[in-house]
């Protein structure tokens, strides 16, 4: 069985400063890992995904994440936060057995002007 733990339930940053959202995963097999973003009253949007290619994955809107097998982590970063980044972010894992998505509890990002 696979699972993810998002280490921060809420992150607050100032506009223009870096954003770091932390995620640790557990999987019995080689995992696929995803980050999704959910803006208020909107559907989940895929930011990026890792599927055993390059360990540094670039996504949309300037986000990137690094897969570290030794640390079982898949942290999401962005060098400079924008007001539009305020949203809920979900780290998600699936494996090559049943491809089911297992979501973390989410991290709420607040961006201060």
């Amino acid at each position, binding site marked *: 069985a696979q699972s993810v733990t998002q280490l921060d339930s809420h992150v607050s940053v100032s506009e223009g400063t870096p954003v770091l959202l932390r995620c640790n995963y557990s999987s019995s097999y080689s995992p*696929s890992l995803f980050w*999704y973003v959910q803006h208020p*009253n*909107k*559907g*989940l*949007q*895929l930011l990026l*995904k890792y*599927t055993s290619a390059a360990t540094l994955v670039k996504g949309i809107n300037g986000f990137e994440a690094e897969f570290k097998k030794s640390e079982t982590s898949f942290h999401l970063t962005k060098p400079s936060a924008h007001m539009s980044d305020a949203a809920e972010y*979900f780290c*998600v894992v*699936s494996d*090559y057995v*049943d*491809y*089911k*998505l297992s*979501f*973390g*509890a*989410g991290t709420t990002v607040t961006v201060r002007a």
Partner: protein
Amino acid sequence: EAGVAQSPRYKIIEKRQSVAFWCNPISGHATLYWYQQILGQGPKLLIQFQNNGVVDDSQLPKDRFSAERLKGVDSTLKIQPAKLEDSAVYLCASSLGPGGETQYFGPGTRLLVL
């Protein structure tokens, strides 16, 4: 390309009443999913369809929840009778296939059971 459509967007009902949600996936997507997202938690899979057949409904409370995808396109999720703990956002997603393809999510239906 049109995204996943869901309706209604919001629904308020009293406990023991019934409610139905509708989902229209992205054209050509064979796999359709229904998730339940309780406030403060990540989405949890309720049921997965491949065309019009059920692939996985192990987490669906079958005593009160039912879902169908009769023609392999649109799907409906029904709750009868509703309980207070069913208050949540119900998300529909679709993908080209079941084998690790990217899932695309609709805006969700927010249900409040009073």
